[in-house]
């Protein structure tokens, strides 16, 4: 299997010599094409820093991150932007939809900044809207939508450019349980049917149970890693809970 993401001993330090915080401490793992990986950890464990480094929003102190074979820690300036725009898709906890644009235009923007033709944009949006069941709300503004709808629009924006990797940062964080479930099923669909590679950060065991693999992080290091394999989602969920219990601490609160 082809490695979409390869992370090699990355470290991220904050602060100065007198008070050093190691947010990431020699972390390494790979993500293969078509995988759906969840990263779990308590707050302060470094999972958001990890995501920021992969998405090039933040820079690593040392180590390498390869996406599709290219070392993205070496990228600078507009190359960074191009990488973000062409190789990555983002789904954020707070949706990050532009409030002045309709759903359609929000999705279109991801393509139009790649100078895609208007006709092709239209075709692609129609297709993705059907898949994510947001056809009816395409003309609506973010403030007219529910949280679940917003997140599905954001997902549509993330997937429409055909990115190598979709990064999801607490995608269900701001959703109620029903919307969460619906969104996660859609993400599963994107993963299964469209072979999208998804890396999702979450502290919610239920959300994580939709992934194929869960990586647990503690204090900037990998603590544990479990695969769903042939298990049912329910069994996988129980497995995750076991690890979370083992991890202890405030992750329990999140359940």
């Amino acid at each position, binding site marked *: 299997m082809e490695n979409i993401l390869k992370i090699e001993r990355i470290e991220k330090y904050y602060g100065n010599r007198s008070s050093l915080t190691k947010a990431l401490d020699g972390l390494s793992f790979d993500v293969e094409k078509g995988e759906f990986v969840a990263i779990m950890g308590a707050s302060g464990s470094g999972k958001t820093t990890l995501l920021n480094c992969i*998405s090039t*929003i933040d*820079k690593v102190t040392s180590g390498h991150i390869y996406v599709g074979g290219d070392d993205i820690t070496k990228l600078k*300036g*507009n190359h*960074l*932007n*191009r*990488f*973000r*725009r*062409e190789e*990555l898709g*983002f789904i*954020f906890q707070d949706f*990050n*939809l*532009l*409030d*002045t*644009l309709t759903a359609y*235009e929000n999705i*279109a*923007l*991801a*393509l*139009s*900044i790649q*100078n*895609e*033709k*208007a*006709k092709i*944009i*239209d075709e692609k949006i129609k297709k993705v809207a059907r898949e994510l069941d947001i056809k009816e709300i395409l003309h609506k*503004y973010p*403030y007219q939508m529910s949280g679940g709808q917003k997140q599905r629009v954001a997902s549509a*924006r993330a997937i429409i450019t055909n990115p190598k990797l979709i990064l999801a940062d607490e995608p269900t964080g701001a959703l109620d349980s029903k919307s969460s479930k619906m969104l996660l099923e859609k993400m599963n669909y994107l993963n299964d049917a469209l072979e999208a590679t998804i890396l999702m950060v979450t502290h919610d065991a239920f959300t994580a149970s939709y992934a194929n693999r869960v990586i647990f992080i503690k204090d900037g290091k990998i603590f544990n890693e479990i695969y769903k394999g042939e298990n049912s989602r329910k069994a996988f969920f129980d497995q995750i809970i076991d690890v979370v219990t083992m991890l202890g601490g405030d992750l329990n609160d999140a359940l």
Partner: protein
Amino acid sequence: MMLFKLSLKNIQKSVKDYAIYFFTLILGVAIFYIFNSIESQTIMMNISKNTLDIIELMNNMLSGVSVFVSFILGFLIVYASRFLIKRRNKEFGVYLTLGMSKKKISFILLIETLMIGIISLVIGLGIGILLSQLMSVFVANMFEADIEEFQFVFSQSAAIKSCLYFSIMYLIVMVFNTFSISKCKLIDLLHGKKKSEKIKIKNPLVCILVFLISSSFLGYAYYLVTGGLVKLQNANEIYIPIAIGCFTTFLIFWSLSGLILKIVMSFKNIYYRGLNSFTLRQISSKVNTTVFQMTIICLMLFVTICVLSSALSIKNSMTANLNTLAPADIQLLQPMNIKEDRAAKYTTSQISHSNLTSLEVLNALGISLEHDLKDIVSINYYSTPALTFRDTFGTTLEQVQKQFRFLSFDTQENIIKLSDYNKLATLFERETYTLNSNEYMIIGDFDSMTSLRNIALASGEKISIFGATLFPKYSECKDGIIEMSSGHINSGMFIVPDEIVDENFLVANLLTANYKANTKEEKVKIEKQLLDIEESNVYILPEGTTRLTIAEASLGLGGLVTFIGLYLGIIFLISSAAILALKELSESSDNKERFRILRKIGADERNINRALFSQIGIFFLFPLLLAIIHSIFGIQFCNSILETFGNDKLLPSIVMTALFIILIYGGYFLLTYYCSKNIIKERV
């Protein structure tokens, strides 16, 4: 002093946010000082007494205008500081949750305002003092005073005045700040930004309808102030096109903000290219909520453009007029044949001597003109109750009266013999005329009046005077002057054949002559001798008009209008640009979030900057464009009002105006762009 430290830190921290505010304050102080210091500059100059009188008038007017200006600047400063407070709601919220009292927060703001005030005053005064040295060269040029050597002028009174006025303004700001702090609630302070704005898409059909209706009304208003101006019956009616203009400006902004988006959206290839859709939505969402502000700014710019270009052109054309309107050195107008019933105004001796011409009066007073004057032309005015303004219209009277009810129709017309006029015209190097014994003609150059008289002339109205009946030779008034003046104010003189005139109706004598002198000093000396005569009870003194006094008066008047126009124009320009800039910057925190999202989905830095540039650019350009369209008609209107001054030199003044706008408005635009760019910039 904990609070003091806090506010000092605050200013340091937010210097970038305050840049526009600072810039405006400094500019305001500097301009205020410069225009108020003109007084002490003119005192230093070598200027004749006539000009000095006008300069004094100008200085009085300037200080009057300064009060008005300080009101505008006061509003601007209050407005600006309210913006800045809004930006800092969260900060104040944090203070309040920490248990700081509102009194203390007000105190922090007070110190901040005080410090900003002092700093801006000092810098503004410094810049003002430097620039006023440049201004003094301009002032000297304007009044044609010669500066022998450069003098550094510091006007203490202007400096004190600036400090005083601005202190009052800052005081008002402090009161406002305290008031707005005492009124606010903690919950609003902390969550003030979470307000989700609803974006309403207006019904395009309604927009098109409103746009068409308001455009046609605006067109009608344009017509009223240009082509239809003749129809205006009295001065109050000018408010109609102005009111229509203001209202339609609002409606046009309102409808365009909905329409433009719709139109561009229908061109999908443009709309979905790069960040176009984002930029357009940014603009339209803002125009939606700021239609009213746009209108105010547009109207202010419109006033600025008209005031600046008219004011600058008056000076130009006044100087140009001098040669055509004052071709001789001196004219003396001597009222003659005063009737007994005017005894209230004149003494009996004056009345009995009123058969003398100006030459004879001066001779009688012992002033000999032989040595001083050459090219002497003496002409007589005649006037009869049989020929009033009303009588000249004949059968067209009703038509004219209907249109111009406010005119007085009972004035007696001035009549001049043809040979007299031809003598004068020869001296003035103008065309001479011939008339048959039953013909008359009218000489005039005041367009509003001559166009009125042309109605009667075109219909061939006859006049009956001194027992003769005369018909017009020409179907319109002929251009020409009798009395010298600084403007086109000859409203029409009747030229008739010599032989019909009855000498009993002689009312005045006009003497026109040149000085036997070559240098200005000699001319001034002669003029003094002829004009500075002691009042006499025996004789009525002739009323003198000279080329020199006209030149000085028009110089002074031109300077006066120019300076006041410049002052008001610049202040208006600064105010409108500053409001736009502050509005734009106050939204930059919302924008920051939006641009952050754009970066996250991978938009290039170049594209982001371009989007920001066009967003701010269009926001600045939109009101300016409509203001320019307004001005095209507004300037024409100003011209028709000011036509007595002549309007041949409009182009250079329009160029100057454009230069001012590009400099100040453009400067604000660039400053806003760089500040916004700084705000949305993300540290990676």
